């Protein structure tokens, strides 16, 4: 009988993964610390035209770009004269599964089917699960979703419980677990048992799927306003949303557009903690994923992640839980758009950043997500209150994640806070070097680090010098 202890299954990881993705990542590896990212994307991904065709076949993409006139007007009331860019939102909730994740799933499931897999498995508690389940239903594959759902008292975040319902509505099997990183263990066992495809969030096909979003954004702005957006804000967790959108913008030729990442500040909360699991009111789009995935992109469930946000990010800001809930309500009350909260993380950032920009500039929030029972500010705030979280009006910056949620007492208190991008880049370089035994780096390694951090030779050399690394 097979040894299914934690260490034995983790030891079979590479073998299981190779069979479950159909990519031999080794061929893209360099001798040093790097790998050929663009070659991986080229050889295992799809062209933009192919993706539009694949997605179009299942009604994914071509979502509307909506101007938020009242929210723009509100931002202008808070801004200096002449300031306050026009704020737009890309209504990704109108995708079949209710979020931009349908773009990722469409490609992944199409690819699985093309390779002859009978089913797909994804480990996710979020919108990606319903996206994979929806696509599996459309493309006739079986689907299993593995979720981290409950704490040790059996209490589940309403948002995650709703996601399970949605997956089951599309005919998927949902396996629900309590808190812990061993979800990955269960995921590996299931891949091994079923021989299904690993519809990971981080494969080249998944990330490439989001490129159509960035491309559409550029085309919609050019058609209507004769120019590309000045700024695009992406809610950032694992980095795929930002990476795919930025790559799509670049493919459209929108190279001047600035890319901003935004995450909910959950600093101080441990993501694998049983007691803190239900103290957070956001299950994604937060710093608990955003920061580690930015600085160690290859921590995901594939050997080399196709999500590499630091290659594209011009700025990274945090916002608070209270601000996101507040703006979600503002979107409903001022724009008549009722959407799920998590996708509105970028909206908070855009509302704040728009006030730094000129009135004739354009800032785009590149997603919305569906809403409903469980996945809505009402149940999420109600759940927080039931879990001992204090909810009040005040200055959102005084929040303590896990203890309170402070809704801004006035919209002028909504402010995006910059994360130190330089610090994150240094951290990325340090992590990239520590992952390999070689202490001496070559020119290829240097080039890799420059691209990974979106910096230049002088920058990387100075960081390496500080770390005591010679070339």
């Amino acid at each position, binding site marked *: 009988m097979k040894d299914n202890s934690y260490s034995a299954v983790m030891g079979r990881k590479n073998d299981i993964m190779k069979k479950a993705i159909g990519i031999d990542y080794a061929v893209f590896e360099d001798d040093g610390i790097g790998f050929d990212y663009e070659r991986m994307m080229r050889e295992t991904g799809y062209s933009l035209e192919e993706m539009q065709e694949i997605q179009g076949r299942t009604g994914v993409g071509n979502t509307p770009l909506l101007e938020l006139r009242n929210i723009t007007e509100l931002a202008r009331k808070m801004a200096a004269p002449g300031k306050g860019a026009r704020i737009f939102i890309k209504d990704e909730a109108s995708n079949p599964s209710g979020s931009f994740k349908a773009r990722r799933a469409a490609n992944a499931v199409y690819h699985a089917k093309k390779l002859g897999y009978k089913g797909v498995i994804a480990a996710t508690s979020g919108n990606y699960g319903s996206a994979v389940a929806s696509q599996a239903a459309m493309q006739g594959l079986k689907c299993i979703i593995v979720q981290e759902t409950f704490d040790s008292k059996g209490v589940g975040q309403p948002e995650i419980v709703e996601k399970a319902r949605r997956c089951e509505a599309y005919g998927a099997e949902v396996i629900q677990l309590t808190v812990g990183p061993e979800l990955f263990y269960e995921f590996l066992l299931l891949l091994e048992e079923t021989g299904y495809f690993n519809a990971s969030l981080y494969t080249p096909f998944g990330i490439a799927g989001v490129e159509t979003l960035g491309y559409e954004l550029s085309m919609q702005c050019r058609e209507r306003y004769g120019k590309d957006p000045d700024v695009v804000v992406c809610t950032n967790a694992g980095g795929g949303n930002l990476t795919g959108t930025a790559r799509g913008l670049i493919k459209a030729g929108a190279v001047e557009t600035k890319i901003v990442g935004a995450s909910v500040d959950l600093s101080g909360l441990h993501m694998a903690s049983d007691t803190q699991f239900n103290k957070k009111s956001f299950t994604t789009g937060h710093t608990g994923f955003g920061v580690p995935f930015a600085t160690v992109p290859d921590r995901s469930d594939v050997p080399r992640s196709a999500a590499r946000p630091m290659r594209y990010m011009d700025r990274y800001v945090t916002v608070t839980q209270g601000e996101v809930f507040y703006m979600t309500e503002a979107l409903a009350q001022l724009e008549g758009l009722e959407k799920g909260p998590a996708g509105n993380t970028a909206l908070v950032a855009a509302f704040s950043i728009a006030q730094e920009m000129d009135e004739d500039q354009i800032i785009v929030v590149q997603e919305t997500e569906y809403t409903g029972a469980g996945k809505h500010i009402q149940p999420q705030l*109600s759940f927080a209150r039931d879990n001992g979280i204090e*909810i009040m009006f005040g200055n959102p910056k005084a929040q303590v994640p896990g203890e309170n949620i402070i809704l801004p007492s*006035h919209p002028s208190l909504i402010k995006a806070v910059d994360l130190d991008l330089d610090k994150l880049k240094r951290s990325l370089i340090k992590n990239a070097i520590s992952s390999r035994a070689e202490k001496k780096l070559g020119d290829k390694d240097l080039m890799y680090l420059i691209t990974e951090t979106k910096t230049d030779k002088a920058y990387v050399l100075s960081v390496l010098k500080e770390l005591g690394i010679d070339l």
Partner: protein
Amino acid sequence: MKIKKGDWVRVYRVIFTPDQRAPQVPDDTKKVPLEMWVKGFCQSDAQIGDEVEILTITGRKEHGKVVELEPTYKHSFGNYVPEITQIGITLKEILFGGDDNER
């Protein structure tokens, strides 16, 4: 509660006891087991609490203690949160409420 073979049920199983948990798990999580729930068609007559085998919707065999017959969803829109009502009132006052509120 009497469960008949073929009924739709939810089963529960402990994947790891606290001492079997992964080394990187934080201390509080290490004190509790890793638990799993999954739904499927019961493969035998049973009572709530019995160990059973099920066939999941994808046709996989699973096993565990049966904890629920015909499980349904209980999540909702939660209780009324008075603060939410205030947000719209404040915003509309600032945006459309007249000159007094303008900077």
